[in-house]
């Protein structure tokens, strides 16, 4: 049962992670390492896996990148949201508020 719950959480995480990334980037542009720290250990269990995700978001045109000098060390690749990224995020927010409310309805209904 514990194993099932663990794989469920990792599937849920995989599904929502791209949108959590888009949501963070909607506030401000960030570089990869900074993004991983902001997402925290609940969302990112294996830090390195964020880079393939960022690469896909870029190929899908949802984020764009720019190289910027860093105050210390080598230049950093910053990620920011594109217009397509904003509308994808808005669509997800809409879906999520309906879906999340539906799930809460059953979970909280059982508790009372």
């Amino acid at each position, binding site marked *: 049962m514990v194993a099932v719950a663990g794989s469920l959480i990792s599937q849920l995480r995989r599904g929502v992670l791209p949108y959590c990334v888009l949501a963070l980037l909607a506030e401000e542009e960030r570089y990869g390492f900074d993004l991983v720290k902001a997402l925290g250990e609940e969302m990112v269990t294996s830090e*390195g*896996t964020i880079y393939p995700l960022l690469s896909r978001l870029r*190929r899908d045109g949802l984020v764009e990148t720019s190289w910027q000098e860093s105050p210390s060390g080598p230049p950093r690749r910053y990620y920011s949201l594109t217009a397509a990224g904003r509308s994808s995020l808005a669509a997800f927010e809409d879906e999520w508020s309906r879906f999340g409310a539906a799930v809460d309805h059953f979970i909280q209904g059982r508790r009372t």
Partner: protein
Amino acid sequence: MSYDPESEIKQYLESLSSAAHDLPRTRRRELVSEIEQHIRQALAESPCDDQGEMIALLAHVGDPVEIAAAASDQAEDGRTPLPATVAFLRRPRRVIIALAALVVVALAIATAGWVQTYQPLAFAPAYGLPAGSVNTIGDSDHGALVG
């Protein structure tokens, strides 16, 4: 043995690169260089004084096999996946299996042709009975019993 952070990093990146051998070369190089930068930023933030700390840092970055698997998953979801034939030809073992199958099929066809041309007796039973003879016999027996 003295602790050498550079050799730990190098070893980690090499295993990532070999785990990601399925990726197109540019994508693989990009991934390895991004992970290297990530490690260097993590080191700049919290330097590792001994091998144990370094191993813990790399464990946080993640299992190279898991990162490589995430990269090939995301590559498949991408807008421009490799055409099926190219993806197929990138795997030498599959090509060899396909060629072997092709050879087997060709041999089977050639054997069938040879048997038909030079060994007509192999099909003799099929030619031996007059057309419709089975039905004729059956009908007459049946007719006799009923009549």
